[in-house]
């Protein structure tokens, strides 16, 4: 090729190595925050840094964390889903009703529970698919679609429950309860599932074509369309994936209380979105961080754990502290594009 004139050189203020080091450092913010919080927690209460407490915090994080991994894909592709809390409630209520109804027809309680768990995942996928179709083929803003279903899902649960609670039959809850309360190798099952979902999400987002397309669409949908990416299909899949994550979180949640009520999953959508954002994913899309999302989810529940274990700040101010952390993180990341 002929030589281009020197004016064609892009100005670059830093040497390559320094630039890429800084790029990696940008992802470490949430991790650093979590480490600092843990140090503070340990200093404030010796019970904080115990195995049991750590397992307790991580088990409680599992629901939101699993949903947040799915949410990370949706947000990275430039979308949003406000309905996940209501969706979890409706799935919980529906599978409990289904399992109770199956008792006279299916002999084995294990089979009933397995069917219930499977149907939770299938329901989640169907709900997510419906979101995706309305958003892509129906060309409605994701905010509007999922704001609508947020109301619809919870209303149907309330209707099914007649305003009260839907409770799992006692014979089934004894079979089902190990799914939440059981453990393997000393680690509770929900944590294993959470870890599996997170690792799968990490691999899919960063090492598959689909993951690359998700980031490309969130970064600039038009460019992706012109670059021969099947934009609609990829977007629908992000909502289906989130629905599946909600289904998985719900199937872990049902054995915990054995019931679903109009307050089940209340505000989960905000906690899941907060975890994604605290983890460094840009709300406007294009840049997804699964590790950050997991760290963000853990960080938010560590805050409430510390407030529970100490009495410096009232537990009732938990949401205020979390809110302040979200705003602080957004402030620190405002310059980053």
């Amino acid at each position, binding site marked *: 090729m*002929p030589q*281009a004139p020197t*004016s064609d050189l*892009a*100005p670059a203020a830093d040497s390559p190595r320094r630039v890429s080091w800084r790029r990696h450092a940008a992802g470490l913010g949430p991790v650093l925050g979590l480490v600092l919080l843990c140090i503070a927690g340990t200093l404030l209460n010796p019970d904080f840094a115990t195995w049991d407490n750590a397992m307790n915090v991580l088990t409680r994080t599992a629901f939101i964390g699993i949903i947040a991994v799915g949410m990370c894909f949706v947000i990275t592709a430039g979308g949003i889903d406000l309905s996940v809390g209501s969706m979890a409630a409706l799935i919980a209520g529906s599978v409990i009703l289904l399992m109770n109804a199956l008792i006279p027809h299916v002999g084995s309680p294990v089979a009933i529970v397995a069917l219930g768990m499977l149907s939770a995942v299938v329901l989640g996928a169907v709900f997510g698919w419906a979101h995706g179709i309305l958003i892509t083929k129906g060309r409605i803003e994701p905010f509007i679609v999922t704001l609508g279903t947020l109301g619809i899902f919870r209303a149907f649960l309330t209707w099914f429950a007649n305003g009260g609670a839907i409770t799992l039959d006692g014979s089934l809850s004894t079979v089902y309860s190990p799914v939440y309360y059981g453990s393997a190798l000393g680690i509770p099952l929900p944590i294993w599932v959470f870890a599996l979902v997170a690792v799968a999400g990490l691999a899919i987002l960063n090492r*598959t074509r689909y993951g690359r397309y998700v980031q490309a669409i969130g970064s*600039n949908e038009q460019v992706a369309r012109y*670059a021969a990416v099947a934009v609609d299909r990829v977007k629908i899949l992000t909502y289906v994936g989130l629905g599946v994550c909600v289904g998985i979180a719900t199937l872990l949640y049902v054995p915990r209380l054995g019931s679903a009520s109009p307050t089940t999953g209340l505000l989960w959508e905000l906690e899941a979105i907060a975890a994604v954002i605290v983890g460094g994913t840009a709300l406007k899309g294009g840049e997804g961080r699964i590790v950050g999302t997991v760290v963000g989810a853990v960080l938010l529940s560590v805050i409430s754990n510390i407030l529970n274990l100490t009495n410096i700040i009232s537990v009732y101010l938990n949401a205020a502290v979390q809110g302040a952390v979200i705003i602080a993180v957004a402030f620190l990341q405002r310059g980053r594009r």
Partner: protein
Amino acid sequence: MSLHVRFTDIVKDFGPVRVLHGVSFDLEPGHVYGLLGENGAGKSTLMKILSGYESASGGELSVASSPCRFKDSREAEAAGIVLIHQEFNLAEDLTVAQNVFLGREPLRRGWLDDTAMRAATREVLAQVGLHLSPDTPVRDLIVAEKQLVEIAKALSRHARLLVMDEPTATLTPSETERLFGLIRRLREQGTTIVYISHKLDEVERITDEVLVMRDGRFVTRAPTASLTRQQMANLMVGRELVDMFPPRQPVVDAPPLLRVRHLSVPGWAHDVAFDVRPGEVLGFAGLVGAGRTELFEGLLGLRPRSGGDVELDGRPVRFDNPRQAASKGLTYLSEDRKGKGLHLRLSLSDNLTLMNLDRHARPWLDLASERRALDQAIAGHGIRTRDPEAPASSLSGGNQQKLAIAKVLQPDPRVVVLDEPTRGVDVGAKRDIYFLIQRLAAEGRGVVVVSSELIELIGLCHRVVVMRGGRVSATLDAGHLTEEELIAHATGTH
């Protein structure tokens, strides 16, 4: 009141890169100046300093004999200097009157004085010859009207020096005439106009004097009447333009690679037919709005089309989206690099491999293989970057364009459509791209070049299809390619 402007040794640095090296010249009131220079010559930067969007790193700008250093564009406007951008600064949802007074709305007892705004707007609209209600939403205006609203807005701010950056880029010939009439009237009233354009025929017609810049330096000034267009072009580039284009290879006499018949895109293109043979560079000429880009977007399935028989390599095909087209061997480079061509925030290799990721997935993405593809593209296309890990936005315009072209070549297409392949790139990168296009043709591919630069089409193409109002008005062979001929067919004055 006259407005005399003097630049003395103006210097501008962006980080370590100096883009203006001590520019000095004067602008007399009541003249129309043509400011000429290649992309990257520094003319836009200089005009941004004049109008308060950038500040100089050194040197002095004096307006009406007193030194000035505008903090922002409002200060420059207060001094009577207004820059009219290539992309308009209008709030689409507000009305014409609301736009004209945006940021300095007149108040009456603390409330907006709509009556006064409407009356004053009517007055400036009449000055620019635009007969519109001040209450029309800007969204409803055509491009030419928006341009006039921008000028009306400047006049209502008592502008005495107007900088127009490529004002006719999106205007039809009759709208251009209207703009020229307005420029002449403004000049008579003593307004200074700095007219930036790559269209030398317009510079020749409307300006009194040309100022030439090259590589961040002021080169020369001369009365427009004393220069031919060829002399202007040579002054801009600083050398003879003959070696810009590689020699054309003969086209193999083979059946066409791409055969299009009766292709119609409602509202844009009607019953278009053309062939692209192996090894051929086929040009598409036409005015803005002639339907060239829309024709190819229709071919790719990006717009609805109402008919058309397309054959690729002898087989009938029908594309519903660019994905199908790419899998069959046809790719398209959009004219809109920022909006449709590149993901500026993503890395170079993410951009490069997006169209053929399956080659790097087995099934997990092989980052090392993507990196090898990037290294090959950097070497093969002469992409200059200091950091291959950096986002695409860190590249200069010319290198971004080379990356965008490398990207559409990744799926190894049989036919590639390049829409305005040299828009916004400097002369060195332009030459690189011309040599690349000729190399692609020599490899036996079909290359379609859609371009608004006639010189480019004349220098590159074996044949040129001229479009006018959505129809093919002529297909010219290399032997008949002249600027006059192309313009005559594009404007229907043949």
